[in-house]
């Protein structure tokens, strides 16, 4: 290994918060050399971004306090130099890109101005900066660079915005690029393209790349070395292959085991009766066709997954068939009756039989209601089970069913972790003994290890209670593990539909193939093989 360009030594950072001091990172040490890619892998709250923020002097103190450690770059300890010295390094020698490029670009200035500012802020002449910006914008693959310079961030797509962020970061040819979850907000096909671009640019400039990610697939695709963080500490480090194949720490092993897309594929049961039948459902907003002629059926105890990238119409489909949006045309037959035309009284009955679990439980649970109130609300609405004692007993039963405990009954949503909150949302859906549950990206906001648990829970409910599921997701691994039938959507239309095995092993449509190819495998060897086959070309 060549000489380290940047070294973090025994870094410990505390956050002083309302509930006491949190040791955000403890004794973290890592280093990165020229031309090398180091991945920092961890789940939410693992402290994976803290050292990067310390390098960039982006930690606000208070609440943050750097307790000990040093960050060595170019013979200097970055924790000891002045604000002004730090400012001169930021962007020039060490640059950073972030997860959400829309939020991280200033909405009120043109992207050209922002990219040029990277150089003018460091005292370079404007015309030189302008020329370099044009070159780089062209290099990262944005069409019509002159025109693009004058446009504003909201006028680009998510992938293009991240490309522009990368162009901005590379303006001064930095030695080190820190990428904090650079592709997490992007669709899989775009993610693959952005990662490829990062790799190319790294090869051209020989810079060091520090990638912060929660995604084993992304790490396997791009990193040379990896450090795994859990609860503020580095639990494992080594080359990507070492860590994947010979993980020593139990946490790492658990993380690798939880990666979706490895289980047995389910086979749909063709003899079950049809519950829901959707016929030529369409919905448009002004002239934009969000959903066009969608037709499919759901049988009892079936798990149907709808996959697609953002803007594919998968959420519109769910919202329209639940009458949260008014359909333009088409029919939705629930046990033979058209849900879209039925009276309010009939609809109330159906609202009991179909439940929904939303993406973000933080938002789908009313923060001012206790767990008991949340779960019992359905009974109030449908005037069921009047006895309070009986209700409490049933709520406790439901909590236990989803893996929570009786003591949780009087707490409020903010006192739970993300995974626990989603379990509450599932318990709420189960309270009305539904026959169909629609999950709209119900696990995508959760950490991988929690994701696996929630998927297992849903599957056991399907098997034990015979509940059907419509499972809307963008993550193919999760879909592969959970669904027995898959619908692939693109631009408001159903592209392909079939049993899971068929979609994953013998896809017919080019779009399905592209989607599958872009899905990154957590196994670095599998990824290397795919790359060798030129599957991204």
């Amino acid at each position, binding site marked *: 290994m060549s000489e380290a360009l940047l070294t973090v030594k025994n870094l410990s950072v505390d956050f002083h918060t309302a509930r006491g001091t949190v040791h955000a990172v403890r004794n973290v040490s890592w280093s990165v050399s020229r031309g090398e890619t180091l991945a920092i892998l961890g789940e939410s709250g693992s402290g994976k971004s803290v050292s990067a923020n310390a390098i960039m002097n982006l930690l606000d103190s208070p609440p943050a306090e750097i307790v000990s450690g040093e960050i060595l770059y170019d013979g200097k300890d970055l924790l000891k130099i002045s604000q002004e010295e730090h400012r001169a390094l930021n962007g020039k020698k060490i640059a950073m890109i972030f997860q959400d490029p829309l939020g991280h670009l200033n909405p009120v200035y043109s992207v050209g101005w922002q990219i040029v500012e990277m150089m003018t802020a460091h005292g370079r002449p404007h015309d030189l900066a302008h020329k370099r910006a044009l070159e780089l914008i062209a290099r990262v693959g944005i069409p019509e660079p002159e025109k693009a310079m004058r446009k504003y961030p909201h006028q680009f797509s998510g992938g293009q915005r991240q490309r522009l962020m990368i162009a901005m970061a590379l303006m001064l040819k930095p030695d080190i690029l820190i990428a904090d979850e650079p592709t997490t907000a992007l669709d899989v096909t775009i993610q693959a393209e952005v990662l490829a671009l990062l790799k190319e640019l790294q090869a051209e400039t020989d810079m060091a790349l520090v990638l912060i990610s929660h995604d084993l697939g992304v790490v396997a695709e791009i990193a040379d070395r990896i450090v795994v963080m859990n609860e503020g500490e580095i639990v494992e480090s080594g080359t990507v292959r070492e860590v994947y194949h010979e993980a020593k720490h139990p946490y790492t092993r658990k993380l690798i085991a939880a990666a979706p897309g490895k289980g047995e594929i389910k086979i749909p049961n063709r003899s079950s009766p049809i519950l829901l039948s959707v016929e030529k459902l369409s919905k448009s907003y002004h002239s934009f066709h969000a959903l066009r002629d969608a037709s499919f059926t759901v049988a009892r105890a079936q798990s149907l997954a709808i996959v697609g990238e953002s803007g594919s119409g998968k959420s519109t489909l769910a919202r329209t068939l639940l009458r949260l949006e008014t359909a333009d045309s088409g029919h939705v037959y629930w046990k033979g009756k058209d849900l879209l035309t039925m009276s309010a009284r009939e609809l109330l009955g159906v609202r009991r039989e179909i439940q929904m679990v939303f993406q973000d439980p933080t938002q789908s649970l009313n923060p001012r209601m206790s767990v008991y109130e949340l779960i019992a609300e359905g009974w109030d609405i*449908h005037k069921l089970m009047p006895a309070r004692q009986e209700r409490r007993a049933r709520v406790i039963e439901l909590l236990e069913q989803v893996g929570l405990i009786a003591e949780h009954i009087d707490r409020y949503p903010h006192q739970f972790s993300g995974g*626990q909150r989603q379990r509450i949302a599932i318990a709420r859906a189960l309270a009305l003994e539904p026959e169909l549950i629609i999950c709209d990206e119900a696990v995508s906001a959760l950490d991988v290890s929690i994701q696996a648990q929630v998927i297992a829970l849903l599957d056991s409910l399907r098997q034990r209670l015979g509940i059907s599921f419509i499972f809307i997701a963008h993550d193919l691994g999760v879909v592969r593990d959970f669904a027995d039938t898959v619908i692939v959507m693109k631009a408001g239309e159903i592209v392909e539909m079939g049993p899971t095995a068929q979609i994953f092993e013998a896809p017919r449509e080019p779009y399905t193939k592209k989607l599958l190819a872009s899905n990154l495998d957590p196994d670095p060897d599998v990824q290397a093989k795919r790359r060798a086959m030129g599957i991204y070309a």
Partner: protein
Amino acid sequence: MPATITQAPTTASETKGPNLISMLWRDKFAFVSVIILLLILVSALIGPALLGDAATQQNLRGRNFPPFSFERGWLFYLGGDALGRSMLARLIVAAQSTIAIAAGTVAAAMVVGTILGLIAGYMGKVVSQVIMRLADVIMSFPSLLIAVVVLYVLGPSIPNMILVLAITRVPIYLRTARAEVLEVRERMFVQAAIVMGATHSRIIVKHILPVIAPTILTIATLDFAFVMLAESSLSFLGIGVQPPDITWGLMVSQGRPYLSSAWWLAFWPGLMIVIAALSLNLLSNWLRVALDPTQRWRLEARRTKSV
């Protein structure tokens, strides 16, 4: 990462949520404000009964008696007015009507405005447009004219004063409530309630009202100060409260002719308005933080300084 804190499952002892009084103690400005407001409130409630006729008893020898002297007893420590009445006693009596008017106005405007705002935010476009245009009309209607109309048609009285001021303040609550409803009704938990089959009234009462209530209360606190100022302005112009009723604003107005000879006649009541309004402003700032679960940590944070 801060994320760890919100994610961390907490112990049962924290289920009740933070104690309001201890959070109040942590913001010293807000704490002092509450003490001052309570003091004003208590003296306004029981003061006039205790004082008897001290506030109305004229004494021509004590006309424009200068302040800061105990020569004529503590009631005259703040001086005497143009008819020789105790300034302090009159301030306390005026406090009662000042507070009664402000409280009545805020309560009436808040209830009416919030209900209209909920309707405007939740109902269809037509109802909403009509309500909003009416609010526009009220907003552009000169409050001076409303005051004069009510004064001449209904006669001068404290309830009529409340009516005048409440009309002008309704749009504030209406607009705030409507804007909040429009935002809250798009939130996921409202959508979740709709999917479960909840009726409109249930969604408004159970899901929307509890979420917008803190904002409305915070605004009401601030508005209390504003209404006090508005009332005093009208009284000052002679189209508000009429003697023998008395408010702080009217006292300033009555003291104005004696500015160069007896400054205290106009100074004390004005100062009372400033102190009360300032306290309400500080309390409102504190409420805004204390009632917001995402900001509340600012008031709890100091507990851990010693850790």
